[in-house]
């Protein structure tokens, strides 16, 4: 069954396909922009995640969001039916709804609520949304079957879906683990919400990208062997 599906995928895939190298360059560009974001915040605004988390997070997602949208909208599904700008538009909707979902998850897991930490939670959710939901909305749009297949059933097909699924899950799991040091009484500034959760999410995202790259390479070899 699985074999059959895999063999069929190249035919039914109607989107742009991407090689492992292409995926790597996408990761490199997004990662570069994240780094640029950190550099800008550090050298122009003279703050960092610890001293002013809400400003930092806001700048980070504002810098990161356009580049993610630009790149992933290029990889959108059904490019002939759906224009580039539509993809951009729907990813803005995705950004907001993704932020809502992330904020809901974070609050139920125990993120601080209240006026003081509200901006931090909001900007953290936007950043998480950029990592998790925005690429998927840019590519899938409102196609519920694709969402369901990729995110819920964990049955990605093709490199793009690997690129969407694995870093997103990586970011969520990383953020989950990132919350663990928060209650400890070390009294370090990075134990504040959402500093270590952010580090966890970014770390998890990077791990997810590495895993997805290696999966792409492995599966391609596998497929090549199969074809041969």
């Amino acid at each position, binding site marked *: 069954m699985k074999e059959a599906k895999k063999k069929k995928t190249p035919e039914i895939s109607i989107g742009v396909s991407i090689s492992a190298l292409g995926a790597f360059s996408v990761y490199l560009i997004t990662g570069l922009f994240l780094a640029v974001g950190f550099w800008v915040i550090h050298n122009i605004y003279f703050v960092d995640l610890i001293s002013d988390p809400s400003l930092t997070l806001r700048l980070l997602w504002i810098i990161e969001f356009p580049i993610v949208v630009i790149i992933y909208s290029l990889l959108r599904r059904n490019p002939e039916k759906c224009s580039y700008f539509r993809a951009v538009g729907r990813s803005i909707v995705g950004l907001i709804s993704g932020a809502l979902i992330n904020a809901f998850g974070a609050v139920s897991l125990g993120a601080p609520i209240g*006026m003081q930490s509200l901006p931090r939670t909001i900007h953290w959710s936007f950043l998480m949304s950029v990592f998790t939901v925005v690429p998927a909305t840019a590519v899938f749009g409102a196609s519920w079957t694709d969402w369901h297949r990729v995110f819920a059933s964990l049955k990605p097909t093709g490199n793009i879906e690997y690129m969407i699924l694995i870093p997103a899950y990586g970011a969520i799991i990383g953020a989950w683990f990132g919350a663990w040091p928060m209650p400890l*009484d070390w009294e370090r500034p990075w134990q504040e919400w959402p500093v270590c959760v952010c580090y966890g999410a970014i770390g998890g995202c990077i791990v997810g990208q590495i895993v997805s790259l290696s999966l792409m390479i492995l599966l391609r070899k596998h497929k090549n062997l199969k074809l041969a």
Partner: protein
Amino acid sequence: METYLNNKKLIALGFLLIHSIAILIFTRGFLLTRTELPFHSTCSDVSLSPCFASQHPNHDSSSGQSNQTQPKCWTKPVVDRVIIIVLDALRIDFVAPSVFFPEPKPWMDKLTILQKLAFANRSSAKIFKAFADPPTTSLQRLKGLTTGGLPTFIDVGNSFGAPAIVEDNFINQLVLNGKRLVMMGDDTWTQLFPNQFQKSYPFPSFNVKDLDTVDNGCIEHLFPTLYEDDWDVLIAHFLGVDHAGHIYGVDSSPMINKLEQYNSVLEKVINILESQAGPGGLHENTMLIVMGDHGQTLNGDHGGGTAEEVETTMFAMSTKKHTTLVPPEFDTSSCKQNTDGKQICISSIEQLDFAATLSALLGISFPFGSIGHINPELYALGSSSWNLDDSGLGNFGTQSAAKEWMKHFVNVLCVNAWQVKRYIDVYSNSSVVGFSSDDMSRISDLYSAAEQNWSNSVKHILMDKNGDEGSTDISALLKEQIAAYLNFFSSVVELARSKWTEFNLNLMITGFGILVISLILQFLAVFHGDKSYAVGSWLSTGAAFSLFIVTIRACSFLSNSYILEEGKVANFLLATTGLIKLRYSVMRKTMRKEAFIFLAMVSVLRVSIDIGLTKQAATSQFMSSSPSWMLGIAPDHPALTYAVEIAPILSVVILICVLYIAISKAPSEGLWKYVTIGSMVSYFFIALLWASESKIFGLDGLLQVTGGRNRIPQTVYVIGLVQLCLLASTRMFCAGKDKNWAIRTVALVSACSSPVVLMSGKQGSMLALAHLVAGYCIMRLEGVERRTQSDGQSKFSKLNPLCVVQWSLLSICMFFASGHWCAFDGLRYGAAFVGFDEFVLVRQAILLTIETFGFSIILSVFGLPLLVPIHSQTPQAHGEKRHQLFQMYMLFGVISATTVTATILCVTIQRRHLMVWGLFAPKFVFDVVGLILTDLLICLASAYYL
């Protein structure tokens, strides 16, 4: 199948027994208990002792003038004023010269002024090695120092909660005898003695990072006070060394700086004293004591009983010059040659003896519960000078002076021995866990032997005015008498120590081992008779994930931070399971609404847990409060007031509706329904009570009509009891007729819930509603992660561990959300008085237990059958379901037992931790009580349901 299931009820009972035994054994090794006695010593008591009755004439003739000028209490005062400087966590090697240790270290020989004084020629100062008794935490040590006893973690007294000492103590005796006290430094003293100090300058002690506030405050007030004459006893408690140890460790430059600072402070103090020490001066007859309350390890930890922690030091100095008169037999000094080849000696003392010795020096009655004896060397530092003056040094010489001192000392020891014996007798008569009769008779023998000796010979010698003839004979007799008393004291102390202070590691490990074995057995019991499913369920993701969650939670107890925030951790894990369920429900395209509602309920609970945490932070010394959850709404906003008044009553109304729907839907009728209707009536009464208490409904007159505010709660309790009796009797006499769990569970849970809701107060009904909704969602989501719908249908009796884990986590969240935490100040004492005004121990204790564990254990255990999905009513499926229910109960028990085992392991590992008595031990007590209660209720529930 039937007999097999009947045996299963015995399995639950068996685990209750095993757990009780394991916990009993562990507790006997870990938590040592002692009863606090409310008695106080008074000056007139001493006439009951055998020491003075014929003694007075002797004293009157030889030193009559002093007896008439100052009223004598138990002993003759020998010093006028005492300055006690406590340096917290002072290790012995901070004070004693480095030649006493294998190799010199950078932190040694920093308090040079003390060494210089102690080892000068003809000095009236001495360095002691002092032995503290564990637990070596400041609070317990101060208690021990002042009461002269051995405080344990649980000093069963009437001061549950407030730390103030109610036992008789040295400070209290000082006040009773009209001495004036001044205190500065660590605010623990003012917590222990709220009213005793005439003047006090307390400084907060809990901020460990702050090395200087307390010390600087002390120094600022110490020097001016030394020049004043409006006090008799001055206590200055410095904390810098303790804090420096906790933060930087012993081998660090802040520590050495602190010691150097102390050296200069002490030098200045001693200069002031010496400048005022002349005849008629302010400090003519003053004693300076510089002491540590306990030691510390090289990492700065203390609390336990290792040599580094219990060995502290005491420096004592009298402003009068004299030579030592202590006979060499009772000299405990150990001597070394220092680098100059000079002989230097340090003595040793038990901290236990501090209260008795100082009482004797100041001439006040000894604290009632003191079991220490008067240390000859410390006593001699003060009393030698007095004796020399008194008996005219010129004629007699040192030999005779020593004899004179011994006569005095043996007399004081006689009083001391009588007082200790009195305490031991009273204690073993009035305490629940007294001493064994063997021990008592051994001690009585020793005492009566010493007493015999006293009344036969020594008393006559003391009465004999011409004690010159046969002086060697007399001093030998005196020495024999002193030795007999000291022998008595040491056996008393040995007995008390073995009962009150030592961890028994063997018992602790045995208890832990039994618990681990029971855990394995219980685990096997879950899968017993379930071979075909066992493999399948073991490999399922749900089981693996459950195991992961339970393991994480168990491991989290190894850190004090996670114990403090246990509610948040449980909530985090519960929300995680909720998210996993949400993913599966999206994947299966069913029950998405339930998954979302479950997460929403978890969010509601977490807000409630946050509110509870802020309450905890207000009293806890380990937590800082974080008001970040506060919403920006003014607390007295009218809309908010209305909401606060109406929401609980609305929730009660909703609960009544839910019960109505439950019984109207149920197919069978009979008693269960009537019981449930009883609960609805109870709920109605609760709503009525709350409505009449609030102002907005205008029902104030209602309370008068019903006859006081206690009538309604009492009615609710009575209804609950009647319901339970009905349920039990129905179960006994009409067994096996009704196979429908749902209605039986509803009846039982509703019967239990109404008193719990009533006692929990207004939040109770809302929490009950949240519990109900979350439980319903867990039930609906049960099995959502199974592969297909049909798979779940056919094998419905396959155990799903994840939902039991969720239920268990939910119950833990309920504990914290209902405003409790694992500390004795987390008990809601007010709840015990809902419906009653006067205090009856047993009744109020039962109510408090029901309130504390009501949501988290009672309702959770009895409500567990609600998680069994109602798929089929066929009789043959009923057996399967009973089996599944049994497995669920066993699994619930395993989860509780796992966390308790983890707590016990953590307590065993951390028994020397700084917070062992503040944090780990209360957590242990709560967990253990919870586990026993869970086991008991599982027994009852399996008798009721299976």
